[in-house]
């Protein structure tokens, strides 16, 4: 078990909020996914993707799209 799901989600939503300034959702999602892929440990990405499987609906729209673009 790596960083908790609650914290991973909080971090991902925080990234999304800071990269979202009114552009198209897909563009924001690309940026969010690129950021996470570049800076997060693979274990955190895998854990977050696993968590997203059952909880994607609760994410913001851009993050929902970004999860699909994670490595």
């Amino acid at each position, binding site marked *: 078990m790596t960083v908790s799901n609650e914290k991973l989600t909080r971090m991902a939503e925080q990234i999304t909020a800071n990269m979202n300034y009114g552009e198209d959702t897909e563009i924001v999602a690309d940026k969010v996914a690129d950021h996470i892929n570049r800076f997060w440990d693979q*274990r955190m990405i895998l854990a977050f993707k696993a968590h997203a499987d059952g909880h994607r609906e609760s994410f913001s729209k851009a993050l929902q799209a970004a999860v699909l673009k994670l490595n």
Partner: protein
Amino acid sequence: MNSSTAEYTENWYRVGAERDLGTKGSCSEDTVELTIDGLAVCVPEGTSIMRAAALSGTDIPKLCATEDLDAFGSCRLCLVEIEGRAGFPASCTTNVEPGMVVHTQSNRVAILRRNVMELYISDHPLDCLSCPSNGDCQLQDMAGAVGLREVRYGYRGANHLDEAKDDSAPYFTFDSSKCIVCSRCVRACEEQQGTFALTVEGRGFDSRIVASQGDSFAKSDCVSCGACIKACPTATLVEKSVIELGQPVTATITTCAYCGVGCSFRAEMQGDKLIRMVPNRAGAANHGHACVKGRFAFGYASHKDRINTPMIRESISEPWREVSWEQAFEFTAKRLKAIQKKYGRRSIGGITSSRCTNEEVFVVQKFIRAAMGNNNVDTCARVCHSPTGYGLKTTLGESAGTQTFDSVMEADVIMVIGANPTDAHPVFGSRMKQRLRQGAGLIVIDPRATELVDAPHLKANFHLALRPGTNVAVINALAHVIIDEQLQDTTFIEQRCDLDAFTIWCDFIRDKKYAPESVEKTTGVAANQLRSAARLFAQAANGAIYYGLGVTEHSQGSTMVMGIANLAMLTGNLGREGVGVNPMRGQNNVQGSCDMGSFPHELPGYRHLSDDITRAAFEQDWGVKLDPEPGYRLPNMFDSAISGEFKGLYIQGEDVAQSDPDIQHVQAALTAMECVIVQDLFLSETAKFAHVFLPGSSFLEKDGTFTNAERRISPVRKVMQPASGMAEWEITCALSTAMGYPMAYSHPSEIMDEIARLTPNFSGVSYALLDELGSVQWPCNDAAPQGTPTMHIDEFVRGKGYFSPTPYVPTDERSNSRFPLLLTTGRILAQYNVGAQTRRTANMAFHSEDVLEIHPSDAEMRGIENHAWVGIKSRSGETVMRALISTKMQPGVVYTTFHHPESGANVITTDNSDWATNCPEYKVTAVQAYPVTAPSQWQESFKRSDIAQRDLLP
């Protein structure tokens, strides 16, 4: 007799006495030719005769003159004769002129000088043999130089010989009986330091130097920077260490191990005993100035608390066992390898220290990547300036400040955001104050009224006292005004910046929600103040921005750094002297530790691990396959330790159990690990959770380099052998070898050669170059063999400057009825970071405990009295400190420092962090404050465990 060829000495780097040319140099490019004592001399226009003579090899006698200060012309000892001119002009205040013929010595001049000296000595104690300045006294030297043989006035007249001695200051004494009232100390305090603590009281014969209004030095405004002591030509102001131990014999140039200014010092020694640290006049960062920490607070290096023998233990409840280095390495390597076998290669990692040298940091990250085989490496810069790296790389293309410190002297308007340079970067703070006293405009953006807001002979044009957590709203409002009122530098933007990005950013920033009138309520800053400040900055010929941890340590730290870079680009304030984006780095080697590849996603030189070419270069050089995936950041390591996945941590010289936020969380993480290795000077808070203690070495005990906030790489030089027998880079190499990846260097210069070989920005750096130049600013390579003082001159490192939109996203940490106040943390002048060094010096006399600063109305509302105990509670924890009622605070905001472990400032701070880098949000914590009569539960428990852990020492 010739010496034997068998004579040998280790090559310690030593220098002779520092020469004083008497007056400041001139920057003029025009030259003047003249004749001095028959010699043809050519010097820049504006040079004094005194300096010109000194440059030609003749030191004209002087007492009130020093090249550190403006010429004053009061002692009348430096008189000369000039052909065709009547009288005897003072050579310090008379500038050279073309064709001038000067005689520095003549019978008439000699008589005058002797007479002056007779007068001085007639009112001076004749105790030279027992005087602490014997051998280092300019008055004594001048008596010899002018051939003083008698004092015709005698010694029985009115005099000052019974003046009382003031030894109230911790590090020096003031003996007025030895004073010649040359006022060098007064001028040093004014010109160099900018404190104005000293003055000349009385007139004529009654004139005497006093601190403040006749207070003792300890009670005065004096900040113990030591400038007056260096300036004093007699024994009036002397270091207590010199009084106690005598004059130093040798000197070595080295670099201070405190803040990110990186002052150059002469470590003055008797044998291998450090007598005093004297700021080096040739030091490019400090120009002969210092602060109380670098100048005096070095006693920790020889403190009795130093642990100099390796220690191990099976569990943290067991007593420590002293062992040999070999046993320590074997124990550690075996344990780490066992953890990796059981939990996987990525279950361990390490932290590099921003207090250690570049070379030491480089070998630690190499050890982790090559010997541990993963990228779980992070640095304490994570918790201070990681947003600077991200923000400046994104916008400008390089993770570093853009200027030299000297650049501030060309600035017309200075904007200081979330920084308190007079406390945290005092030597640069003094330099900034010099420029401000010359008339530069000043905008301070800070929740607190820092010293710069209203200091002697300077006052900020604007103090935007924003609510903590609203930085981005303020920077956006400033940019909005500039666009709204068309004050931007269109030519600069069109030539230097990415126009597509600028267009998107313009649309973003034009939004009415960023208008000053819209953010007024959120930020607490009046709209008209924001508009006026924006106009002042935008209309300055040279506008420079300086910022500190009040910018980075927020949930939007990275956004704010980008907002600052946007503002600088918008106003064309990059790429020349007097402008720029200047991060004030906290610790001595924050810049260097970042440069050296301490982050889990990038290799030295800020190159991402996913870059195959870069990775291949390191793999080839190191002979090992590197993990291409980023590792854990520091907070991720702690979280994963608590969840049971991360098991071992090698900590180089950092005290995470005191300095990191949400301490109880950090302590739980450390407790959960199976092998914690601490390499430090003392039993730090973190070491209490360790299984292995490897004794570190102080900056006096090793060779290496530090890189300061202006990218200046400066040499650190060994002046004594390591107390533990090993320099820190040697310890890391030995541990790596024990882990199965041999690392061996015969000297840190070889590590720097490796850094240069693998890092393009450092390819020209070598110890030989540092010996030649004194210091060098990176990039230093074929394109810039002498280094790069100013970055981004013709184009940005990334090509075109990138305007990144900076949406304001309020922090999750909000005040409410339970936690109605916002706590922000910082540091003060006399202490440094966790205080491990400064708490073990006489600096404790200046600041012996952390206090909670609170506005009078907040205190009154809660029944909190000045200096009384006050409880502070947040969502994370609770602690108790004494209250300090202060109008520097705004209502609703409280402040404290974290220099003392028992105060538990970081028990209260939360695990909120910057969105891009996870830099903790130290600067915003919602709290409640209330009167109490006893320490908190955490403090009681801290006290018990502190005693228990100390009892476990051998």
